[in-house]
């Protein structure tokens, strides 16, 4: 165990908001010299936001940052760099059009003047040799020609290169996500050596084994708050999962719709993900709410889009019977027509029914809009107002009205509750259950584990495959998280 020294960085009561979302809700943490802190939490727990605050790329709305005992007033990227705080971001931050050496120069303002290219090459090559022996990367390689794993290696090695500014803390946000087992272990043993030499690390990973095996201390975050922190030896896998999950059960708001007769109901969707190698497939029947769970971007949206396409054109491995409607999750890009009124936004999926001759009948459009305003509770004085006059939650309601007001028997929902307040959510859950009782089928991708309680059946995704298939009575948060973190690779 390395000797743990003075506190290097301390965050005190840090808050950061994105609109109504509290990404960080009063976080207080401290990192000491020569310490490796593991940071875990579910999607949207606020880990990445916290790292951006530490790295100076995101400014907190509230709270203070203290580095080396000095409170920081004008904290910024360059300030963080002078203080020796580096960050390896989750999304790659290399310039693809530049060489490995040139990308190193970008990181170090002091590499300039005659011979800068030589010095940058030597610096990065030496560090790559140290971290990833046998890496096979040349400093003159252009980054876009490197495979994603090698890019990540370059990025990690670059963060540990030192020129004039000292190196005190390196934040690694999912540094092994694109590395294979061999290079991951090279990196992890390098991290342990570095920490032993007195440099601190903050290590974020979804692979709980990596966290448990390499951290001195573990911090667990949930909903923008630190829920627990302690020496790594006091944690095990199950305790981490429990702490991350938010187990305190909500009141059973879910009306248990008995699905004993599942087999006898009409089949609506049968789909197998492209990357699925075993025989598992997703099955959704009439009147069912089927949840798609797992970590973000592990193939859930891809499957929804594949089902959506399969409704109109033939597709291998996917059977869809009946018309389909999609409720987009990213409503600004994929959902609303920003120039149109609320009623036009609702009516677009049902134009065939709203038509009178060759034209859209304004009377029928208004009638449909009015019905849905009352049914789903869109708060507006006039449905002819522009859609942007609504709050985010009400815009989302309009998108639900578009799908539910259509003839679609199958409704696909792509994590539609992002950034929606609790009141609206409960109203919409109720409506979805109502519609399901009426015979509609829902495919519901959600990153919020609580929402899965509304589903009759849940499929957990990992790396583009279905890895678990849970009935309502088998569904627990622990099971979902456990399967999403399946370390199959």
């Amino acid at each position: 165990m390395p000797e743990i020294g003075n506190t290097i960085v301390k965050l005190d009561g840090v808050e950061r908001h994105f609109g109504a979302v509290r990404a960080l809700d009063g976080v207080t943490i401290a990192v000491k010299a020569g310490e490796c802190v593991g940071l875990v939490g579910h999607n949207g727990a606020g880990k990445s936001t916290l790292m951006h605050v530490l790295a100076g790329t995101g400014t907190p709305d509230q709270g203070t940052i203290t580095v080396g005992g000095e409170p920081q007033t004008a904290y910024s990227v360059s300030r963080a760099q002078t203080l020796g705080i580096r960050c390896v971001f989750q999304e790659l931050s290399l310039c693809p059009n530049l060489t490995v050496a040139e990308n190193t120069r970008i990181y170090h303002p002091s590499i300039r003047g005659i011979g800068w290219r030589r010095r940058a090459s030597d610096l990065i090559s030496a560090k790559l040799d140290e971290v990833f022996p046998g890496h096979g990367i040349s400093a003159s390689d252009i980054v876009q020609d490197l495979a994603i794993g090698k890019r990540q290696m370059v990025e990690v090695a670059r963060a540990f290169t030192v020129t004039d500014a000292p190196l005190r803390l390196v934040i690694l946000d999912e540094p092994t996500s694109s590395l294979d087992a061999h290079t991951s272990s090279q990196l992890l043993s390098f991290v342990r050596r570095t920490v032993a030499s007195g440099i601190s690390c903050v290590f974020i990973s979804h692979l709980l084994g990596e966290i448990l095996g390499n951290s001195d201390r573990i911090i667990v975050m949930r909903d923008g708050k630190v829920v627990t922190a302690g020496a790594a030896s006091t944690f095990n896998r199950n305790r981490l999962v429990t702490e991350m999950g938010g187990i305190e059960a909500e009141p059973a708001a879910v009306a248990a719709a008995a699905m004993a007769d599942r087999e006898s109901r009409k089949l609506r969707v049968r789909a197998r993900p492209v990357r699925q190698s075993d025989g598992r497939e997703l099955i959704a029947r009439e009147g069912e709410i089927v949840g798609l769970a797992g970590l973000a971007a592990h193939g859930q949206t891809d499957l929804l889009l594949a089902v959506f396409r399969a409704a109109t054109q033939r597709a291998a491995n996917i059977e869809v019977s009946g018309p389909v409607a999609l409720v987009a999750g990213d409503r600004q890009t994929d959902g609303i027509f920003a120039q149109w009124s609320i009623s036009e936004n609702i009516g677009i999926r049902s134009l065939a029914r709203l038509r009178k001759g060759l034209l859209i009948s304004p009377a029928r459009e208004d009638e449909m809009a009015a019905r849905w305003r009352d049914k789903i509770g869109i708060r507006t004085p006039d449905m002819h107002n522009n859609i942007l006059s609504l709050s985010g939650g009400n815009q989302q309601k309009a998108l639900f009205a578009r799908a539910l007001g259509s003839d679609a028997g199958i409704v696909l929902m792509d994590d539609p509750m992002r950034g929606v307040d609790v009141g609206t959510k409960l109203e919409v859950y109720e409506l979805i259950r109502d519609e399901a009782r009426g015979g509609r089928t829902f495919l519901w991708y959600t990153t919020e584990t609580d929402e899965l309680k509304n589903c009759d059946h849940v499929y957990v995704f990992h790396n583009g495959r279905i890895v678990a298939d849970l009935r309502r009575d088998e569904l627990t948060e622990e099971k979902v998280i456990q399967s999403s973190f399946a370390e199959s690779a």
Partner: protein
Amino acid sequence: MTDTPSPTASVASASVPAARGIAVRRWLRALLPALSLVLVVTAIGVLNPRAISYFGFSLMLGLAIPIALATIAQLFVITVNDLDLSIGTFVGFVGCVTATLLRDNPLVGIAVLVAAIGVYAGLGALIHLRNLPSIVVTLGMSFVWQGLAILMLPTPGGKAPDWLLTLMGLKPPFVPFPIIAAIVIAVVVHFGLMRTSYGTILRGAGGNAAAIERAGWSLLRTKVTMFTLAGVFGVLSGMALIGTTTSGDANIGNGYTLLSIAGVILGGGEFVGGRVSPIGAVLGALTLTLAATQLLGFMHIPPDWQVGANGIILIIVLAARALLSRRGDAV
């Protein structure tokens, strides 16, 4: 906010042959501008062997220098993922200033040209700060420059300053002046943009602006630098043009906007991603000058059809390049 471990878990190892294939294709692509120039020169040589001589090249490439300079101006703007639709009328405006003010009243002339470069710098700042599409801003500016040019020189006329005429009329031994000038332009810009440490930052801003900003660099500064350089080379282009044609015309540079964009792309540059090649761009400009003006004359294409034929040659050349680069990208 989203935690996305990549679904491609174990792809850290690229095979060696693939890497070698990439290197070969990259090399071929880098040679492409030179190859197209050789092709056009050969065609001219076959059609008219006498053109391949000191005098022939001096004559044919006279207009290549202003086009090469305008192409370099465009290259700076394209490097940071923008496009300058005003460079042609800007060159025309500079030409009018050169043929009138700079000759009659050099101090005022210099002041006007420096102010025009300042306007370019300001446009860069405006585009960055207000996050405006450069196409719209520069399209608007193209009418401003055109209007100013017509105000300065309502009818073709004026005369280039004598020193400029002397410079552009140089007859160095053995190698024609336009070729020397093209080499100097290519080498200077290549060194500045591709080899210096700040040039790396400038190109990086086109490749991944977020990465540059996260490393603590000012994106405003990179944008202003690039637009200022575009202004400087636009001014050089206008002056070189008047030095070659000896008198001014408000519409003299109008074709340069498209020629400069085509030159950058033909030279191996791409519209986005900070991938540019100054040497390639100069070669591209030479190729286009020869293909678009001289080759057609030697092919006895009537003047009425030359403009249309120009456009077709442009499309063919760029389509050929796109084909080759697509094959190069499909690795």
